[in-house]
């Protein structure tokens, strides 16, 4: 019963359209940033290496290499500050968390394209 009440509360905070993407995909995350008075959009692109949590608390982690240094950012999936998530490329994975990519550099970071590609993820 109490779990149902929590779900009801979270429902108000969920996004109507949850962007479809999976671990391993390369995505562009558009975040709204407030600079003083005006709002602008910042884009962070990289590989999704993890999705965690459930309901309105769901988070996802994106990793990219900036100037030879690995950079990871975690985003709340349902935050209104995430304007858009664009899937640029799909990636085939055999596990849910790609933390092993942290130890890799160069060519071995690449992931195979998932069979069926983008269309399959968007319809899923």
């Amino acid at each position, binding site marked *: 019963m109490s779990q149902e009440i929590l779900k009801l*509360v*979270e429902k108000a905070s969920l996004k109507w359209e949850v962007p479809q993407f999976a671990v391993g995909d390369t995505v562009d995350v558009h975040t709204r940033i407030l600079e003083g008075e005006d709002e602008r959009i910042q884009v962070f692109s990289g590989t999704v290496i993890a999705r965690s949590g459930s309901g*309105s608390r769901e988070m996802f982690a994106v990793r990219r290499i900036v100037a030879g240094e690995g950079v990871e950012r975690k985003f709340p999936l349902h935050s209104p500050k995430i304007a858009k998530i664009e899937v640029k490329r799909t990636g085939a994975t055999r596990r849910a968390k790609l933390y092993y990519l942290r130890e890799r550099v160069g060519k071995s970071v690449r992931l195979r394209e998932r069979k069926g590609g983008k269309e399959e993820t968007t319809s899923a």
Partner: protein
Amino acid sequence: MTKGILGRKVGMTQIYDASGNCIPVTVVQAGPCRVLQVRTAEHDGYEAVQLGFLDKPRRLASRSERGHVARLDSKRSKKLVAAGVALPDKAGCEPQRFIREIRGPIGESKVGQDVTVGVLDGVKAVDVTGVSKGRGFSGVMKRHNFKGQRATHGVKKVHRHMGGTGALAANRGGGRMKKGKKMPGQYGYERVTTRNVPVAKIDAENNLLLIHGSVPGPNGAYVVIRETNVVR
């Protein structure tokens, strides 16, 4: 009446506010409650409203609990009626699980009246009283945030113990410890009030109250919610 209600802690989650900020909230199922009794200055010496929350099966309620919420036939009541004594009003509802008084001016409150979470409309912050999570007999590190002792340098099997007590300046003299010395003991399962916690949202339709931040007690525990009297 004073703005207050009884409720049950459901659990914590997070919501997003209008500007997109994430707020941690405690979800409380608040009411609906029934007014079981009204305390008046003339009769009781103080003013308060007694509320009851959640129905309890009659088979689990004692006769006095059943008689408190509804009129039962008894020899005594018949005798009183025959003598022309006016019996007090009853709410006429099922026995209640959780009954507490909310003190303060009673205003228009009547026995049997329903109190919903709507009474807190427009309230910015509340005081929440509950029974904290019981932690049993706990040591000084958990209970009083003592540092414990060193891991090495000759410390033997007392790493989580308190240090010496007798030679402390505050305790010295008289050959005994000062009263109230912080020591191991029962921790938690006591009445705790968190004061001035902001109200995040009121959902009158589902009788839910969202409180910004935490509230004492485990999930499923009963709490008393009042408009805060902290002046700031």
